[in-house]
């Protein structure tokens, strides 16, 4: 087996141009789904009727179906749905001019919502109820109590799980080529198809994903260190006195 080294190096740098798209899908999915997932988690913790059941069913569905199917369903459903909406609204937009990355944002946000809501729920449950009561008793509003007391503490236990989710998300974005998004995998695949150099191209993709995921892990290790200052140390009270 001989690898075409020149092609491999060229394609590596070519595929690197897809990294911004990969990262933007990841970032967009996390940013869009974080607030939604938070309210999904809250509604499950506080047993809000109907919403709780709907959220539970949604999480179960997303957890129970492959990402590739979610992509295919959304990608065969949304364009025609948008088309109908646009036509009935009378706007002058061509659906086929919409950048496919928009669909990728939607699919991966829907997917991330479910995972993130579970992470938030378990993280919020680790915070002692006394913390909320204490915050309210000294006159904080519920919003203040959450943003200043509960969420920072919950984040400490959530960060390793969020790191896992982010890595799975980055790996999942490699499927965005099915929606013709120009990200790492699709760029390298297209380059490979000219000369049938698939092994070299896929090894390039592999190297890029390993670098990306390693960077994400380092980043999260730093974040965890930073948020670690919120961690309740058993001995910290004694020291303060």
């Amino acid at each position, binding site marked *: 087996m001989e690898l075409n080294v020149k092609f491999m190096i060229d394609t590596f740098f070519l595929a690197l141009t897809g990294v911004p798209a990969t990262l933007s899908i990841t970032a967009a999915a996390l940013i869009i789904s974080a607030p939604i997932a938070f309210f999904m988690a809250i509604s499950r913790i506080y047993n809000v009727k109907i919403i709780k059941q709907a959220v539970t069913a949604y999480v179960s569905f997303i957890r*129970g*179906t492959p990402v590739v199917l*979610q992509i295919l*369903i959304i990608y*065969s459903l949304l364009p025609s749905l948008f088309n109908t909406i646009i036509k009935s609204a009378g706007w002058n937009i061509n659906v086929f001019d919409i950048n496919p990355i928009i669909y990728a944002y939607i699919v991966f946000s829907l997917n991330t919502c479910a995972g993130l809501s579970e992470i938030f729920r378990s993280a919020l449950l680790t915070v002692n109820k006394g913390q909320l009561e204490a915050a309210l008793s000294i006159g904080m509003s519920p919003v203040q109590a959450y943003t200043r007391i509960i969420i920072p503490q919950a984040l400490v236990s959530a960060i390793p799980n969020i790191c896992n989710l982010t*890595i799975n998300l980055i*790996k999942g974005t490699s499927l965005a080529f099915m929606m013709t998004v120009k990200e790492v*995998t699709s760029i390298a695949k297209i380059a490979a198809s000219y000369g049938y150099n698939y092994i070299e191209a896929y090894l390039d993709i592999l190297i890029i994903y390993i670098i990306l995921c390693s960077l994400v892990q380092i980043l999260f290790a730093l974040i965890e260190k930073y948020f670690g200052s919120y961690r309740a140390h058993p001995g910290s009270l004694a020291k303060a006195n």
Partner: protein
Amino acid sequence: MRPFNPLYILEVFFELLPFLPVTILILAGSVFFGSLLGFILAKAKVSGRKTPRLLADTYTAMMRCTPPIVLLFIVYYGLPELLLSTLGLDINNIEKGIFVLVTYTLLFGATMSEIMRSSYESIDKGQWEAAVSIGLSPFQAFYRIMLPQATVVALPNFCNVLINLMKDGALAFTIGLIDVMGKGTLIISRNFGAYALETYIALALLYWGLTLIIENSFGMLEKTLSRGKRSIAD
């Protein structure tokens, strides 16, 4: 626009069912070989010897960062050439399921090794010492004392990775394996792209059902196996 036809979902669903054994066979095969690989890796990780541990850790870290579809294609395109150039073996006409099996064994082995390691380490070392001190051989101590306890600890995680493996397995259609997903894409192309949404929904329901079955049976298994276990809850 052609109206959405909910009845067709049902029709496709029953057409997909005969291909369920392929999906389950690939799943079972990957779990079997992946567990063997995972066991070897986990043994290297807890053995305390430096080189095997480093190798196993590096392998796991690499696999953790590898998208399944990328590994699938590397195996699909790379393995035949590798075998042809090193051993002179021509496997270009081999069953596609083999490539799928190899891919998911490699992936599952890495995750499995982490589960095995963490569950093994969660068992109190005193259990091992007590077992050996009453005269059990190291093998007996592992097989009769450590393994049953570690299995209960590992069950919830195992259920999770099993579901993930099944979902990742849906990608096998991209290299042309005819499992439920592959049959679904065949049905769509047979209809010249019509009823795509209905077919995908039928597939989603099928996978959802499988996931629920796996989850519930593991929940029951966990309940049965942890009968004798005492925790802070009691």
